[in-house]
């Protein structure tokens, strides 16, 4: 596979509010439950997956430093769009002043939609249909009160501005590989507010099988081994799953140092692996190789191999880093959390 395209700008966004897992546990189990993350991000009362996507997109645009009217594609991956029917892509394109000759679409594949948006936009660039396009993964995930998912279902977005392949860019997408099967581990039916899941079934046959198949598939096609990568990022529904996936594939903990943030912000769904990638780009050196493997329930994984380019050091400081967004946090209690999520109304 020849390099598909390059990332010329990237941006992440995490809402300001956090709720600690022990606070959720206090309400539902009297503090007995051992939580899979320390805390998770919570969107404010005027935020949704569209507004946080806009924030990430604006940072990506700022880092890319190109005229927004040159952007001719906007693919948004999310499982929590504000409308059932009416795309978020149109609002964000209009708000940021993208070209009106625009390939714009909202995509859904649970937590995998963001990486699929990247692959799709990279393919539009690689085929010469467009020169610049943006891909975003964004979610304000919901867990039913008291459900296991409530501890982790968080909010975040990450956006990538993609252009022609160049070593001067932030990073170049060298190889992609996607693996999909029909596996009903997690779903949400039309009109339902909260998703359903199949507990332990979400592990081995779902998360691990797809992550490992996509990662191995990519490494085999590209002729790469785990030790060829400086950084690896996995989808992170909790802290343990990505650590275990890395171990099973033969990666070392130091390769995952920058890509694992779920302990502090929770599972940001379609943004989870992409905020990890943004944090890697905040810290990586030119020439380093990165592997990103997402997972979306239903189920499938995208694996993307990238090489960090010379441009990363020039753009890094033009927008807030992931570390800064993680540190910008204010704790809320369970009552305020319910209010911000619209579960109790004034």
């Amino acid at each position, binding site marked *: 596979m020849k390099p598909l395209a390059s990332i010329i700008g990237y941006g992440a966004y995490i809402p*300001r509010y956090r709720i600690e897992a022990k606070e959720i546990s206090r309400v539902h189990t009297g503090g007995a439950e051992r939580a899979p993350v320390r805390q998770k991000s919570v969107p*404010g*009362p*005027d*935020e*949704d997956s*569209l*507004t946080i996507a*806009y*924030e990430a997109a604006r940072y990506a645009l700022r880092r890319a430093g190109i005229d927004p009217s040159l952007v001719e594609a906007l693919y948004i991956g999310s499982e929590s769009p*504000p*409308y059932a029917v*009416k795309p978020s892509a149109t*609002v964000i394109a*209009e*708000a940021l*002043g993208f070209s009106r000759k625009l390939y714009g679409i909202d995509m859904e594949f649970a937590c995998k939609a963001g990486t699929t948006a990247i692959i799709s936009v990279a393919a539009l660039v690689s085929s010469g249909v467009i020169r610049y396009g943006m891909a975003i993964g964004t979610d304000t995930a919901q867990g039913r009160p008291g459900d296991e998912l409530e501890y982790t279902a968080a909010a975040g977005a990450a956006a990538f501005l993609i252009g022609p392949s160049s070593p001067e860019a932030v990073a170049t997408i060298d190889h992609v590989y996607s693996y999909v099967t029909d596996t009903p581990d997690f779903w949400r039916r039309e009109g339902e507010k909260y998703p359903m899941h199949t507990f332990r079934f979400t592990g081995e046959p779902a998360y691990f099988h797809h992550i490992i198949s996509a990662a191995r598939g990519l490494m085999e096609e590209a002729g790469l081994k785990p030790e060829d990568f400086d950084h690896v990022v996995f989808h992170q529904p909790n802290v343990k799953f990505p650590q275990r996936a890395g171990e099973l594939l033969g990666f070392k903990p130091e390769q995952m140092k920058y890509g694992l943030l779920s302990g502090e912000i929770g599972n940001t769904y379609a943004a989870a692996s992409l905020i990890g990638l943004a944090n890697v780009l905040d810290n990586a050196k030119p020439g380093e190789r990165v592997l990103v493997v997402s997972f979306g329930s239903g189920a499938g994984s995208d694996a993307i191999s990238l090489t960090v380019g010379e441009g990363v050091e020039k753009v890094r400081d033009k927008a*807030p880093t992931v570390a*800064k*967004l993680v540190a*910008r946090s204010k704790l809320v209690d369970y009552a305020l959390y319910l*209010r911000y999520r*619209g579960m109790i*109304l*004034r």
Partner: protein
Amino acid sequence: MAYLRSVPRVWREREIKYRLIGGACRSCGRRFYPYRQTCPACGSEEVERVKLPETGTVEVFTVVRSPPSEFAEQAPYVVALVRLDDGTLVPAQITDVDPGEVYEGMRVEAALRRYRTQGERGIIEYGIKFRPLIQ
């Protein structure tokens, strides 16, 4: 059914509200937000559309504790006059803050947020608010 604002009106104003488009009067030089065809200072119709800067400073503010029903979910919230970096004064909501955290002189930047939803079935209105600058 809840009162619905005009959808065409929201559509007409989308660029102004999403992108902070103001007016610059060619006769008296005043800049203002939102854009309108007639200058509020001198009455001239020689008004140009301008993209205003996205950063500024809180000049004065107040806290809304008894909101109109469409804004109930956001109360208590802060409404301020923000002095943009080009001198334009913009009336706007300050978001991502508790009322006690806002002060005159606070540095803020524009961000797209939900203004209101037109009930359960209507459209969602978005537009620019300001939040503390993330540096």
